[in-house]
């Protein structure tokens, strides 16, 4: 289909704006920090800020994967359920005592989590590409499947990490810190850096953006479109696995409600970060910033005492819209 893409104002303006659009989420973040400092003096304390950054880890890491999926022109609604599923299986494996020492057990669990995450991602990828089903519906389906399987595994209850040895050995993976920086923050930065490297500097990353930008052009250029898309889902699965590996030491247990609605948060983080849902553009660092913004909004709401708890959801919704408006108006300048 030949269309007038060249004449779309966006195309014309975009190169000049790239910088402003990329900066917009960080400006929004800075504004929020100021707002937070007014709301409660404790907000700006190092402790609190580290806390908030630390707990944004789950969404931030998932959202790095979502950036790949979305910029390749896909969408993954199953990530929240996938967290529940992968974390449940990993805990069950840790409880199985397949290996002798807790160290060996943990090392094996890391491998297990990563394999399962990759497999779940692969399933999503194959259903959307080979099955040619819209990603929205395909991953809505697998969302039901992964959560259903989790419910079944837990027989309606919780799956809890039992061995205290493993627990104490594993605890620092979430609660520890290196040179004063909590481990989860290090993991966020490492994941994002790796993601940015892959997306911006490698051949595969270029292909992802090409496929998301115009599938036909990619195909006519000899890019294996389905493989590139599928791999993006696998990357999403790997990010989910990393999240699970941080989630287990923090909460130590899963149930059928683990990770509920996380998919929407991850997608929101990606979009607030400046990645367009139609594909072709991906901003890893913006995404991480978006995840921080989401978490900080919640934190400010909790620390400030003037919002009725019934209204928190409403205000969060309003802030998302305002953040997007700020972003758009900056990007349009």
């Amino acid at each position, binding site marked *: 289909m030949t269309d007038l*893409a060249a004449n779309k104002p966006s*195309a014309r303006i975009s190169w*000049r704006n790239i910088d402003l659009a990329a900066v917009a989420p960080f400006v929004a973040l800075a504004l929020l920090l100021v707002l937070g400092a007014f709301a409660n003096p404790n907000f700006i304390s190092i402790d609190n800020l580290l806390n908030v950054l630390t707990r944004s880890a789950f969404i931030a890491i998932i959202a790095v994967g979502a950036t790949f999926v979305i910029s390749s022109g896909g969408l993954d609604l199953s990530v929240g359920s996938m967290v529940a599923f992968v974390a449940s299986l990993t805990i069950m494996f840790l409880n199985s005592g397949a290996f002798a020492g807790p160290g060996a057990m943990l090392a094996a669990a890391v491998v297990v989590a990563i394999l399962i995450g990759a497999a779940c991602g692969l399933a999503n990828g194959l259903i959307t590409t080979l099955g040619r089903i819209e990603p929205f519906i395909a991953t809505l389906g697998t969302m039901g499947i992964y959560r259903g399987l989790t419910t079944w595994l837990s027989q309606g209850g919780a799956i809890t990490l039992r061995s205290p040895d493993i627990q104490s050995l594993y605890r620092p993976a979430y609660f520890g810190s290196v040179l004063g920086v909590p481990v989860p923050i290090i993991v966020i930065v490492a994941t994002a850096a790796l993601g940015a490297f892959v997306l911006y500097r490698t*051949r595969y990353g270029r292909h992802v953006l090409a496929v998301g930008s115009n599938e036909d*052009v990619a*195909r006519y250029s000899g890019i294996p479109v389905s493989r590139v898309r599928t791999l993006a889902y696998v990357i999403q699965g790997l990010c989910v696995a990393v999240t699970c590996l941080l989630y287990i030491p923090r909460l130590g247990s899963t149930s059928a409600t683990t990770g509920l609605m996380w998919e929407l948060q991850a997608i929101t983080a990606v979009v607030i970060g400046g990645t367009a849902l139609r594909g072709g553009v991906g901003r890893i660092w913006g995404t991480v910033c978006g995840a921080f913004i989401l978490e900080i909004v919640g934190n400010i709401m909790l620390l400030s005492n003037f919002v009725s708890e019934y209204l928190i959801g409403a205000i969060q919704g309003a802030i998302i819209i305002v953040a997007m408006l700020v972003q758009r108006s900056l990007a349009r300048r």
Partner: protein
Amino acid sequence: MNAAASHPPTGPSKSDAPVLQAVGLSKSFGPVEVLKDISLEVRAGEVHAIIGENGAGKSTLMKLLAGHLQPSRGELHIDGETVTLADPVEAERRGIVLVHQEILLAPDLTVAQNVYLGREVGNGLTVDDRLMNEGARRAVRDLGAEIDPTVVVGRLSIAQRQLVQIARVLLVPHRVVIFDEPTASLTPVEAEALLKVIAEIRTKGTAVLYISHRLQEVKQIADRVTVLRDGRLVASRQAAELQPVDMAMLMVGRDVAKLYPDHQTAAARQTVLEVEDFSVPGFAQHASFKLGRGEILGFAGLVGAGRTELMEGIVGLRHGRGTIRLNGTPVHFPNVDASLKAGIVYLSEDRKGKGLLLAKDLRTNLTLASLGRFVRGLLIDKGKETAALDKAIADFDIRARRKDMLAGQLSGGNQQKLLLAKMMLLDPSIIIIDEPTRGIDIGTKEQIYKFIAKLASEGRSIIVVSSEMQELIGICDRIVVMRSAHIAGEVAGNEMTEDRIVVLATGVKSEEAA
């Protein structure tokens, strides 16, 4: 939006006053001024042709006249009155309509729905589809084509879409019709029909602005010819004073008397590609042909003959059945990746939709198909990419104002050159080019022909699919002609004449066809 209907076009105006007049128009995109101080006018019943190289600013000028863009400086007068055209709708209301160079249709709507989009016929709330289907069928038939008005536009070929787009515009009550390369994707037969239609509306007193790279056509229908070069108006003459060679000279600023390069036909060539009994279901049946080393093989045929689909089938873009032998060994390409690896590249006729990422920069586009050559370890070597871009810009004479501009901001001809450069980075041994010069100016055409000849002389084999018979005759060693999904015949040497090709392509004697 029935405003247009309430302004009936004025009858043939006998006065000599210009209907539409541009005074000192300039247009800048950001810091770049692409049109500089253009003044021109068009009178009722006159065909005013605008010619110029790719990127000269023709389309931009037309968009200013039709309200799609606003001038940075300068004025528009209609019937002597100064006006501002805020948007295309306003221009339409004043009777100025534009047939876009790009195809602007809603792919999910039917032909009739597109033709009447925004001015649906009906009573009150509802629309009358029966009436509109009839109207659309008639409007397309007036252009000499037969297209089912209830078919979804997304299923039409580019040529059919172009006809639908023209039909759509001509249904608007109009005083000035602007055609921006309407014939670029049409075959001679349809182009001829369109020219007749233009002659007809002109006698009814409509003013016509006409852009084309086919200088013969310009000579045939224009009363007046204006030449743009680099955004400036370099000449405006009576058509009678100019021959196509003069026009080319004015456009390019140098002599292009010899458009087609010399090429020698070798007697016996080693066959590199052999296609036997190859079918692409629904589009091409039982096609067989051979391609020799260093040969330029043309594919001629009417729109919809199935040439594009046959080629897409061969390179693995479509599902096809049959035998393909490469240097004697049977091969099968399940996807393009495989054919690229085997050294066969296909350049799509749809360069905007399938050739280039319009929203990405030149560098990304250039190296997209051959990224493997630009990686060191895991990393893409941006320095190497930039060097390749510099080289491509030099080799292919790509006129980019900035190296970091987006591919979509290049003019059509330069996009084609970029696409060529992109595919040549793969160093292919067999090159299939679909409509290589569609919408390309004569100077660039000359360059592209030279380039094709050079590739052939390097021992590469080339298939050129084209709807321009002159071009095929000019550059090919042999021409295969397709008709209705079948190969109707093959011509070579002295038999390569327009007559012969038309006979094969239409299945009727040339006198009847004309």
